[in-house]
């Protein structure tokens, strides 16, 4: 079947859905091409923080980009709620980073101070807090907690409901979503792309690669260097509890439904997304040190997801110079950056050029490193 569209977005996760929804907000009628039900889906395996307090020491552009998105998440959530009736579960009541040793505390203090120094005055609002202050926020902290950091700008969403809402709103605004549509090839010319799947051939003047780990091979077909690799993370979720953790922490939080999410590990394991039991044990043990009450709480599920990681961990935003109109949008913080992608990145795609503030995230930075 042959189709034409205003834009083609390859991917079906939070990054793709946010950009695709953003395109529909600007009046485009794009097509979104998703894989099947059991693709590697970082959107279904993440920790759901909308987080700024630790983002980008040494890279102020990243700190600012993360904060911009965090600031705009309320607007995105409200808009999606009114368009779809789905509550994205966005809460922005502050977040805590927990330190379990003096060493961790010293390292974290350094990160917080550096980030504050690199931010415009008054914009970075995280601060180190004592154990006593931690206990005032969450009395459930265990004796091993020595202190930590607190940032009033941090929060969480329900990433699954956010994905559902973005896709629903995208369809409602005239976007067309196709699942089971793995891309087999891309024929590229400047501002003219034809994407082939098993059952369709779709042409459009704009192309956005937002397929996570799939961006690497896809990018090669349109002159984009996207050196991403999988980094495995594991998450544990418990049975539902009555509200006990009012604030999220970096590795442990209570969902709106009541379950406790425990993450996240970091492991180089290629495309293997099976569980490493030793990692589960480590995560569980550290969670119990943080909140001793968790020892008795029942585990419902554990799972592993593959993060989409670039060599320097920062996003890759680029327009192909060989084939203008082809963009790539990839990062490992698709939740935090969701609002920035929906509002800002989509606009850049429509404008036909990326704004200067995203220049730091060009994939050309990896070429420079390669020449050294």
């Amino acid at each position: 079947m042959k189709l034409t569209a205003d834009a083609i977005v390859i991917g079906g996760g939070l990054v793709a859905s946010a950009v695709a929804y953003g395109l529909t907000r600007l009046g485009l009628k794009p097509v979104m091409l998703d894989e099947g039900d059991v693709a590697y889906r970082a959107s279904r395996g993440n920790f759901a923080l909308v987080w700024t307090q630790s983002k980008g020491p040494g890279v102020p552009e990243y700190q600012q980009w993360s904060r911009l998105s965090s600031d705009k998440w309320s607007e995105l959530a409200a808009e999606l709620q009114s368009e779809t009736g789905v509550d994205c579960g966005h809460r922005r009541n502050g977040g805590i980073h927990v330190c379990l040793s003096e060493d961790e505390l010293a390292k974290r203090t350094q990160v917080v101070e550096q980030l504050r120094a690199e931010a415009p005055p008054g914009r970075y609002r995280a601060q180190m807090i004592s154990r006593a202050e931690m206990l005032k926020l969450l009395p459930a902290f265990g004796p091993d907690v020595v202190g930590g950091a607190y940032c009033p700008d941090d929060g969480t969403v329900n990433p699954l409901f956010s994905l559902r809402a973005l896709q629903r709103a995208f369809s409602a605004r005239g976007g067309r979503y196709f699942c089971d549509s793995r891309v087999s090839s891309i024929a590229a010319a400047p501002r003219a792309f034809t994407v082939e799947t098993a059952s369709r051939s779709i042409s459009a003047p704009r192309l956005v690669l937002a397929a996570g780990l799939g961006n690497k091979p896809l990018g090669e077909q349109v002159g984009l260097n996207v050196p991403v690799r999988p980094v495995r993370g594991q998450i544990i979720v418990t049975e539902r509890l009555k509200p006990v953790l009012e604030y999220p922490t970096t590795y442990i939080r209570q969902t709106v439904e009541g379950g406790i999410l425990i993450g996240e590990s970091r492991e180089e394991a290629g495309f293997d997304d099976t569980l490493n039991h030793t990692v589960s044990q480590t995560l569980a043990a550290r969670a119990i040190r943080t909140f001793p009450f968790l020892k008795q709480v029942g585990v419902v599920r554990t799972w592993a997801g593959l993060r989409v990681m670039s060599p320097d961990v920062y996003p890759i935003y680029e327009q192909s110079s060989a084939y203008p109109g082809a963009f790539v949008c990839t990062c490992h913080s698709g939740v935090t950056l969701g609002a920035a992608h929906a509002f800002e990145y989509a606009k850049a795609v429509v404008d036909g050029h990326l704004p200067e503030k995203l220049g730091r995230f060009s994939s050309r930075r990896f070429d420079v490193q390669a020449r050294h």
Partner: protein
Amino acid sequence: MASILGIFCAANFGLRTLLTMDTFELAIVGAGPAGLAAGVTAAALGLRTVLVDEQPAPGGQIYRGIEAASRHPDSARVFGEDYMAGADLVRQFRASAVKYLPLSQVWQIDRDRNLWIRGANGVTAIGARQVLLATGAMERPVPIPGWTLPGVMTCGAAQTLLKSAGLAPSGRIVLAGGGPLLLLIAAQLMRAGNPPAAILQTSTNLRRAIAHLPRFVSSPSYVRKGLGLVAELRRAGVRIERGVGDIRILGETRAEAVEYIRAGTRRREQVDLVLLHHGVVPNTNLALSLRCEHEWNDAQHAFQPRTHAGLGSSVEGVLVAGDCAGIGGAKAAELRGRIAAYNAATNIERISTDARDRQCAPIQRELRPHLRARPFLDAYFEPPRDLLAPVEDDVVVCRCEEVRAGEIRRIVTEQSCPGPNQMKAFVRTGMGPCQGRLCGLTVVELMAQTRGVSPGEIGYYRIRPPIKPIALGELATRAQEK
């Protein structure tokens, strides 16, 4: 960035945990007929074998409580000869060299084939060269209006209470659904002293079944048993309503009445207890958590692990036998358990393939008549479409997360959804403690019917460990701490 993501875990220090672990040549999960027969056979071949089961005594669900029951004079009369036949198998098992771990739940089998077990002494782990999954069957969910109310159970639940505890329901009982077990359980309740007020049988599908009739009647024991049960129930005055549709259970805080349509007329029965049943399906969560490939069995309307002739699954070192590999009944399960044991012995080069084939040939011959009746039963008692996928929007499909049929259908029609895993993400079906056991097939059928494709094309949930509940403190337990 490492400091942001925090915990960095070395991939290979799990090896250390293996050193203190007991390792077996064959580990069997499940003490029903398949597991027991496999254990007896494997031990006779000299395999160092362990059998892990969550119940306090061997027998599985079909021979539940058989040891205690076989010592009671009423058992044979109430339960019948097929049940009592299990006593002999259990005796052989008890006399074998198999290490038996009762009251032990396997909550994870990791990728190194270590079985993680929660038992009376907390969490332990054992290693295995070959693993046999013999996790049996469970009753197919029967999602109808009111099925979540107290005062509604499965027929199997009532039978389990009778076999294991000698408990029978008092008051006015109605059985509803289909399948051969429905009549058997009605008869057992009657013999135990409280005959059901009525049996509501859904329409049978003779048209689909007719082609299999000749092979079915050549298995005379099935025909004789079925007719015998009907006669026995009728003699006792039990009303059997045939061709019943649109069954719904009414009540606020418990079941008070059941309504149905028969011959175009809506009828109502007052009830104290409704027992639902519509056949059994493979209990596959452990196999799924191991990522064994599964295939759709269109005759049985269920997924089952893909197995080859040696009963091996798609995962190396993991075999599957008994009803969890496709429904065949107790006797077939026992025979397939024996075949699996020979194959496990061959896989670790304990016996030659020639010896295995010699030993298995007569078992295969014995197996054939037991499988011969199955296609007719599967077709004749095929669940009606509206039981596989509720028509009414407010029927609860996912009991744990309280997700209703309409919500699932709406996702499929309004925004498209690649499959049950994305559905799980969107509406939380299968995210509760039962991990999809009670909603998985219904969600798949709903998606399939709404899209007009086969359930096999829809696929199934990915199942994650722990597949049995454990506390976080137990997950944190390392093997060497046992």
